[in-house]
């Protein structure tokens, strides 16, 4: 017998990774389409290109984390080391706070845009939670939360869902005052993270037991 078990198993693992990519590609496309449709429906902010460059870079970084890095971690397509995972988590949290709060977090003299109103806070919170809920539904239906043995995979996906909600609202809302952004953008994002994490953990356990 002259088989090479190591090569056979590595090939099998590669094949399973390709199958997983193929399976979740439609779900990923749908998750990308949801904030796009939401922005098209509600309209993007008028001062989008007037924002500081660094905040635009951070917003792009949040999209990259939300649509590529965190889903890859959660679905078992990317396996960085422990240090890389810790750095990634800290960076994701930091940029989420920075993007949700906006430039006013670092510059108190930054123009606030529209005057805040409770209805606007409700609207921004609803947009954050709504976009996040739709992406959460896509993940739940596609079985994304059960791809990894540990429930940490579900938490990475929950973080991605929360970031999608935050960035969608940030690209729509022109109000930059901290009185508005902290409760309705960041607060709603944290709420979305908790809700998605809870749902994801429950679905992970159920689908693992069923499997």
């Amino acid at each position: 017998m002259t088989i090479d078990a190591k090569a056979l198993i590595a090939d099998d693992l590669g094949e399973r990774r390709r199958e997983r990519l193929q399976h979740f590609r439609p779900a990923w496309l749908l998750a990308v389409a949801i904030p796009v449709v939401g922005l098209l429906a509600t309209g993007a902010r008028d001062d989008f290109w007037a924002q500081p460059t660094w905040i635009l870079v951070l917003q792009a970084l949040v999209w990259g984390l939300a649509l590529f890095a965190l889903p890859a971690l959660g679905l078992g397509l990317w396996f960085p080391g422990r240090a890389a995972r810790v750095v990634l988590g800290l960076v994701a949290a930091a940029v989420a706070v920075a993007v949700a709060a906006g430039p006013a977090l670092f510059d108190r003299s930054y123009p606030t845009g529209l005057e805040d109103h409770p209805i606007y806070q409700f609207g921004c919170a609803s947009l954050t939670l709504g976009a996040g809920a739709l992406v959460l539904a896509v993940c739940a239906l596609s079985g994304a939360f059960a791809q990894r043995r540990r429930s940490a995979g579900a938490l990475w996906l929950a973080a991605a869902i929360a970031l999608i909600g935050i960035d969608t609202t940030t690209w729509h809302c022109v109000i930059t005052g901290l009185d508005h952004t902290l409760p309705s953008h960041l607060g709603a994002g944290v709420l979305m993270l908790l809700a998605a994490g809870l749902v994801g953990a429950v679905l992970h356990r159920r689908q693992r037991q069923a499997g």
Partner: protein
Amino acid sequence: MTSPGTGRTIGTGRASGPGRGAPPGLHALMDRYLDGDARAFAALHAALVPRLTAFLVHLVRDTAAADDLVQATWLKAHLARARFQVQGTSPDGAVQAWYFTIARNLAVDWLRAQVRERRRREPGAGDADDRDPLAEIPSDLPTAEELEIGEAEAQEITSRIRDALAQLPAGQREIVELHKFQGLSMAEIAARLRIREGAVRVRAHRAYKALAQWLTPPCESCSCCSREVGHDDALSCRRRGSRSRREPRSRHRSCRREPCPRRRGFGSRREPRSRHRSCREPSPRHRGSRSRREPRLHHRSCREPSPRQRESRSNAAGRDRPHPHALGSRAILRTHPDERAGARDPASGGRA
């Protein structure tokens, strides 16, 4: 290894095989490998292959076969990886133990196949001098049942089984060891021991019956020994076995149908043993000079003298004094004391 209830494959924290300490980080690698990380599998493979190879070479004593078994171990583990579950204090040790258990089972299967193949090719050759590789597999390696049970409980069960086996007669114990530990069939055991297969089956039945009684969990009261058994040692009910009978034991041995197994041997007979020695055939121990086809006569005067008696009588015939043995001790006692005194004096002459 496999839990019979849930079908999950369990690894304990107890490492097995050479180099008992598991390399650190095995569990983290195993987790990532189970999630699909090919690099984690490569690192796991690199960490365990040298140990597995050394372990299998030690078992099967064949480098080429050990290499094949290593490959088979990895493939089998890969197919069963979804059932892996850590149970124990050392997750790294559990991973190593899981792989070593798979390797050991494959080695045992390979050795059994070798033995069967050898017997098939050389059915008449006695293998008494051949090394039986199955017998050299260390008995302290964990089995599927031991892995399922805690280590302390497993040790207790092992010691109880060994004590029970030590209680068996040598013939029954040998059959149990050949049948259960070495996996031989009844026909193979009969061929090895050069006895009939029926005899093998009878001994095996008696041995397993005795073991079942000795290893039964302790009862509240033991009817056979009429005392309360309130302890954990089932071997205290050791009075079971040869004396355990459904019907009361008859007081008269001659009335019993079957002699106690302990009394087998020279006294083992199908028919009851006669009480009168003169009616019996002499036992093998008493064969020899006294071995006669006809029963020995009670009266010495009716018997032929033994060679020693003939010699002594011939010597006594040349003397004045009759040899005491020629007369018999009773003849001396019957004589009058005065006559006895005269008989002792050689000068007096004649017999008393």
